[in-house]
């Protein structure tokens, strides 16, 4: 196969692949927020609350024990 042909296929499939990933990413962002696994908007507060001794705003998926703590 000629390099041009190879290049065309590579470009085509890579583009499709990246588009799929991008859409998957968008869906993931909104779905995980809806399910309550994560709160991406909360990450915006990293800039606002940035004292060295302020509590890190960590978005690791909330463990049940943490959830209980929060509910208290």
């Amino acid at each position, binding site marked *: 196969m000629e390099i041009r042909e190879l290049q065309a296929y590579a470009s085509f499939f890579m583009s499709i692949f990246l588009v799929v990933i*991008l859409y998957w990413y968008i869906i993931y962002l909104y779905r995980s927020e809806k399910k309550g696994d994560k709160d991406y908007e909360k990450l915006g507060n990293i*800039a*606002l609350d940035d004292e060295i001794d302020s509590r890190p705003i960590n978005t690791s998926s909330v463990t049940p024990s943490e959830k209980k703590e929060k509910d208290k």
Partner: protein
Amino acid sequence: MQSNAALEYDYTVAKLFTFTTILFGILGMIIGTLIAAQLAFPELNYLLGEYGTFSRLRPVHTTVVIYGFTLSGVFATFYYVSQRVLKVSMAESKFIMFMGKFHFWLYFVGALLATISLLLGYSQSKEYAQYEWPIDIVIVIIWVSWGVAMFALIGIRREKALYISMWYYIACFLGVAMLYLFNNMAVPTYFASGGLGSIMHSVSMYSGTNDALVQWWWGHNAVAFVFTVPIVAMIYYFLPKESGQAIYSYKLSLLSFWGLMFIYLWAGSHHLLWSTVPDWMQTMGSVFSVVLILPSWGSAINMLLTMKGEWNQLTENPLIKFMVLASTFYMLSTLEGPIQAIKSVNAIAHFTDWIPGHVHDGVLGWVVFMIMAGLFHMAPRMFKKEIYSKNLLEAQFWLQTTAVVLYFTSMWIAGITQGMMWRAVDEYGNLMYSFIDTVTVLHPYYAIRALSGVLYLTGFLMFAYNMIKTMTSGRELSEEPQFRSPMA
């Protein structure tokens, strides 16, 4: 909660880079104003003998403002912002402090050497990549030391999630590293010829059309990764922090990030429309340039929406004004760029003054405004002093805004005039104007541009004065301001 209550952010390196931002800003803008004036008044070419011609000074201007002023600003804000969003102090690690200081001093010495080498005429003559190979090697070491400091700081972070600004700083580091290495591949002739000739000289690994492609892949994306990506990093931190408003949509900022990363690189070939690079590449460059509006505007609109319901701050706080105008100019130039990348428009616009016009509404309106606002925001926190004068800040804002408007309007008219005159034909199909006609007609626009340079430079000197006065004689602050920067 930390056990060590006395721990503080360490701004030593951020302060050092703040000084060089001011220094290189003044230097680069003085040269810029001078060469702008030379086009209107050619006698000014002879102030410094062989070293003072437009052609010799033009790369000095571009490299000093890009790699001196802008990168200093990027580093200054990086060493400030990264500590805060990672919630870790540089003072916590001797190694990181050392790397930061090493990075600064090597950068400072390297920048001076690089500038002198260009004045002396050591040049690869590739735009924005003029430095010869020994300087290139120093630059690589500087860049790597920044990367080491960056990833070491990330390594010891308390805030596990990386804030969006950090994403952009990392992208800046990676993008420039990759493009710079590829574009500056060259063979030093001294070693390849068994010790003949100058040791400074090298030949590019690529020739002709290939060299053009690699060069503009760099040239365009230097704009992406020096003038866009780290500046977006700044606005994503400083605007929310100064206004007390979290980013309007954090998810949109993430999506714009990936969009920008993916699309920006493709657009490089729009610098080579109608040249000898294959048509399909030119078309790709054109199309992706237009698509690039989406992620660019995604960030800019996100910034403007962050101010939703808080527009009163615009009248009360000059720093907000700087940042909102910066994102507006960002929108303007990211719309203007794609227009110029349309092939039929490019046929007229390319090679004319519309191109420097486009560059400058981006850099003067967006990059410099954002860096100045960032440094003004940092000053009260780094020096624990109130900003010296609000009135000066206001005056500077209007002076520089006027200057930017004068700059791009005059260059729009100049560029389109010239582009149309080059192609004008009479009723028999003969060219109507000799080349010199298309030069002399531009005199008034060049004069206006020189004037705008003087205004902008004056504004920048006001910024420098205000900063220095803040450091030396601003009112002491008892505690760090949370959001809005205090000013007298």
